[in-house]
């Protein structure tokens, strides 16, 4: 064993982070080698001196926290991710629905990808960089998948019923469209080449449209108004009699739309958040 082998491991030895056999070899060497023994002492001294020096107390100014919080709160909103979580209060139902939907999407994507051409090439450059989904194909494939499952769902209506049963929500329609989403009352809302999937259901008698959109392409317009509730930021848009509310929950993205007034839908969004927080705390 040479000195270099020992010296390469001196700090690990001092930190007691060597295996027993290696440590024993070093001890044995140190007993015979004065140079290495002196070097070990020197490393230990340097380490202690350095630690004493860097651990001298330095305190941040009292105003620092306020500056940081101010900066953080002024940050632009994060971009919306792909996924959307359903505003369901029942965790198990949500899980069932999300799992089912994910499976549907995967099957639909694979089916659509293999049997249909991708979207036409006359897309913007940005679109071309993104993964493309033929949502019409996905919607069709859902029906194909549903008709082949054990539930023997023969049509879209049956699929909706199954989703309603699984989710505990009163799902009234499911649609997957490109560039637009259809509200429950039949109105079309253009989404400017954003692929969307929509799920319509009734929330205590209020028709609500939940949209899943390709969030990476969903840049909320700057005209959206911000509203805050317990520190949480909601983006609200009211066009005609249609209200849209968007907000982020971790990596999840919520979009609520309904032909109700902004305060009504805002109240619903706050309730959704409260339910989710409660569910998260319980989980």
């Amino acid at each position, binding site marked *: 064993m040479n000195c270099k082998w020992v010296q390469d491991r001196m*700090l690990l030895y001092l*930190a007691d*982070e060597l295996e027993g056999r290696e440590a024993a070899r070093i001890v044995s060497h140190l007993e015979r080698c004065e140079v290495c023994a002196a070097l070990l002492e020197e490393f230990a001294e340097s380490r202690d001196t*350095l*630690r004493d020096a*860097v651990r001298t107390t*330095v305190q941040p100014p009292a105003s620092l926290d306020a500056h940081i919080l101010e900066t953080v709160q002024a*940050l632009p909103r994060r971009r919306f991710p792909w996924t959307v979580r359903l505003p369901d209060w029942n965790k198990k139902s949500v899980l069932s629905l999300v799992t089912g939907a994910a499976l549907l999407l995967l099957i639909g994507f694979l089916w659509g990808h293999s049997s249909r051409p991708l979207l036409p090439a006359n897309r913007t450059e940005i679109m071309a960089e993104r993964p493309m989904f033929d949502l019409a194909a996905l919607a069709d494939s859902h029906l194909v998948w549903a008709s082949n499952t054990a539930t023997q769902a023969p049509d879209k209506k049956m699929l909706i019923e199954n989703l309603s049963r699984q989710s505990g929500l009163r799902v009234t329609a499911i649609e997957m469209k490109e560039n637009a989403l259809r509200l429950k009352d039949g109105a079309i809302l253009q989404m400017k080449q954003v692929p969307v999937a929509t799920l319509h259901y009734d929330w205590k008698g209020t028709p609500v449209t939940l949209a899943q959109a390709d969030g990476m392409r969903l840049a909320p317009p700057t005209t959206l108004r911000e509203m805050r509730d317990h520190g949480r930021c909601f983006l609200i848009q009211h066009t005609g009699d249609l209200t849209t509310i968007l907000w982020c929950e*971790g990596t999840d993205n919520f979009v609520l739309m309904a032909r109700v007034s902004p305060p009504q839908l805002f109240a619903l969004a706050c309730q959704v958040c409260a339910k989710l927080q409660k569910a998260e705390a319980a989980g």
Partner: protein
Amino acid sequence: MSHLPDEVLARRAATGKIEYFEELLARYRVRVYRLCYRMAGNAEDAEDWTQECFVRVYQQLGRYNAERPFTPWLLRVTSNTCVNLARARSRRESRVQVGLATEEEQASSQGDPLHRTLANVETQEIQEALETLSPLVRQTLILWAQEDLTFRELGDVLGVPLPTVSARVQRALVHLRERLLPREKRVKP
């Protein structure tokens, strides 16, 4: 909220709940500031860098995996931010003498025993020696010395294998020793 572990706070802060981020800030403000102070070498930059570090932490909370300990992740984000800031500062200023008092300041305080205790001199010299290390090596050394991390933990924070970490620290210590100890007192490896 004060009883919640860091990991839970971080997960909730990642959902945009600012009050949880505020609690994390309260827990780590001194530690991060101290790291920034040693990396920057002066109080003014340390304040700016601390702010930048926490902004980065906030922005990257979405990527944090709450199944892993929070402290190493925070140290990685903050110390890497410091390295980037130090590099940017070096590029801006061709000749940087951070953390050092100006010659005038030194001259005026040299005769004042209250300001120039032996301990202060030693700390000042070590800070000066730290400034001569590259930002990456400085980051490793400061994390090791200040955070009291084991080499294994340090490797996790920096994302490098154990032998690399110990070799980097050892080289840095040798460098510091050469700068701080008179030649005749050094042991030649």
